[in-house]
């Protein structure tokens, strides 16, 4: 039960942050999303995001900042194995499943559904 509560609180806090970026700082939805991705990447690079996931579970792994963390983690682990070129090849290492499925399912949805306006 405690797990659920922590996930709810941490995930909710990240969403509140996003809402504040929209409402107070007047960011566009795209800018807000990118800001959260970059924040996740920085925290990941500093080694702070993984502990947050351990602490809050899905509360930290589901929001978009987790994507930034995964980008950096992939780049860092590939860099360890293959040197500097690994930074480039590793960026989409972990996230490729997410990106590919977004493209494929987006495409499939567009075949079946029509925008309602």
């Amino acid at each position, binding site marked *: 039960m405690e797990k659920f509560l922590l996930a709810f609180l941490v995930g909710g806090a990240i969403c509140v942050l996003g809402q504040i970026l*929209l*409402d107070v700082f*007047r960011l*566009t*939805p795209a800018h807000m999303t990118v800001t959260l991705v970059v924040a996740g990447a920085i925290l990941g690079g500093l080694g702070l995001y993984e502990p947050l996931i351990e602490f809050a579970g899905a509360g930290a792994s589901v929001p978009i900042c987790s994507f930034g963390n995964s980008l950096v983690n992939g780049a860092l682990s590939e860099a360890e194995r293959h040197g500097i070129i690994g930074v480039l090849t590793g960026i989409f290492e972990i996230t490729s499943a997410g990106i590919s499925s977004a493209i494929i399912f987006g495409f499939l949805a567009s075949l079946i559904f*029509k*925008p*309602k*306006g």
Partner: protein
Amino acid sequence: MLQGQQSWIFANRPVLLATAVAGGPFEARSAIAADFDILHDDIWLGQSSFEKAEKKLLEEACQTSIQKAGLQKEDIQFFFSGDLMNQIISSSFAARTLGIPYFGLFGACSSSMEGLALAAFVVNAGGARYALTACSSHNGSVNKQYRYPTEYGAQLPPTAQWTVTGAGAAVVAAQGVGPRVIGATIGRVIDLGVTDPFNMGAAMAPAAVDTIIAHFRDFNLDASHYDLIATGDLGKVGHAIAADLLRRQGIVIPENIFTDCGVLIYQGQQQVMSGGSGCACSAVVTYGHFFNRMLKGELKRVLIVATGALLSPLSYQQNESIPCVAHAVALEWEGV
């Protein structure tokens, strides 16, 4: 002919011979649904894109207004039309269908009155026996171009507005029975530095106020001359700002006279944030609702101040502020 600094008075009083308005499914539930000539229950109008649907709305409004005037399209000398699409494709493609010599206008949502002012000027000067003026907008096509595609699901702030899916057209004639076009005031482009494209009402309000003040000055009138003064699409937020700005200039227009097409068009359960917007907003309310009220004798003297935000998606991305313009046209119904 020139009146004051930036206005025309039409000595021959061209006639608004016939009008027609078309709308989509959301407009079919609006407060002025009964004033539409054509309503569609499909936002696509059976077309393969929103842009094609918008062009079809415009064509329908134009063809119906010509029909209601008892004319053929060959009788119309000139067609003045504008819309919000890049390169005003809705207007130009409708002009291709109609085959009437064409002036394409871009005044964003002020295009309705820009078109009516120019059509009336040409008819008044003997440049045409009949001129057609129209404009259109479509919620789907406008959201796609200016904001986010609806299916992206972006949140909208309470200052945002709902683009009207519709088109309005009017036949202006040298002679006939109908409300008369008395005069027009052409607005300056005003930019007070608002950069938020989700608060168009606040951006456009100063332009509306500038044109209203210029109109009163040029014609030496005050608000009591009119039964109704309606701005185009300021919405609730912009309308309140406009009323406030006018008050600071010492002009108080009673609430039963001063209104806004974007506030009037939708009702109760329809979630449109601050109100309606888009080229079609002032066009359908004026050529539908106000026109009918004039014919019924409920309104005698009306001033329509159509407001337009002259931004592009690119100018906004490059952090430019939003220049705005408003054009006013005075109509008068003298009875049959």
